[in-house]
């Protein structure tokens, strides 16, 4: 049986794999970006978890003391 006998079925199988796995990879990647974006937005508004220390106010760095 030649390699071209059922080439359409073979090509369709590999195309299905690309579509299904590609969609899964895209979903995972886009979901990661979306969650990071939402978290960054919340933290920018000052909403942080209790286990995390609040973000320090932007103040000038203290002068180093002489040793």
């Amino acid at each position, binding site marked *: 049986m030649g390699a071209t006998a*059922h080439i359409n079925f073979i090509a369709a199988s590999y195309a299905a794999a690309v579509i299904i796995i590609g969609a*899964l990879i895209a979903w995972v*990647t886009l979901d990661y970006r979306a*969650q990071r974006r939402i978290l960054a937005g919340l933290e920018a508004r000052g*909403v942080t978890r209790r286990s995390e220390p609040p973000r320090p106010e932007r103040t000038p760095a203290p002068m180093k003391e002489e040793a």
Partner: protein
Amino acid sequence: MPLTDFANPSRFLGFANRTIPWLSGLTVLAFAFALNQAMVAPDDYQQGATVRIMFLHVPAAWLGMLGWGVMTVAALGTLVWRHPLADVAAKATAPVGAAFTLLCLVTGSLWGRPEWGTYWVWDARLTSELVLLLLYLGVIALWRTVEDPSRAARAVAILTLVGAIDLPIIKFSVDWWNTLHQGASVFRIGGSTIDPSILIPLFIMALAATLLFATLVLAAMRNEILRRRVRTLRLMQASAAS
């Protein structure tokens, strides 16, 4: 780092952030080699070139079942050990396992048409595999239905343990019933019936697909941890506003 440290979601996030890029690169390299091996493998003496569909179909079938196996262990982790990451792992694995099960069914169907003369028959192996896909979809729907993740986790864990009955049915369906689907030909008593020229590329493809599976589950777990942080922060924001 001891294994128990991964119970801490923050430490797990650090581990995932460090591991995912390496695992992704390794997966790409493994697939490049595996696809090359799959394409240069000789035609099967009976199936001809359609044996190349098996390089997708068989690993997809294994990983579809592995996914439910992972979820079963995670279900025990949720119900018995109350591990903080168990339900995260279960939720992350469900869509990945469902995708591989769908791929198994689609490629099996596309192989069946030229070899059996039909895309589908209601034999025990095919039907039990379809049941696995429906179980995956049921679990995904249940996660989306119950808003509180801890309540959803318990319901999903029970469904997962019940659904695990399907795994031995899939595996042994070809022995217990008279099926159009062929019997076990890779893992069987007496050794594989497949020639090494096809068996080795099959194992290489299975290794690459397993690396992809691990990468996607790890990435989906990272997403789920971040999603729960978002939920917690939004609840805190809502309670502070009220």
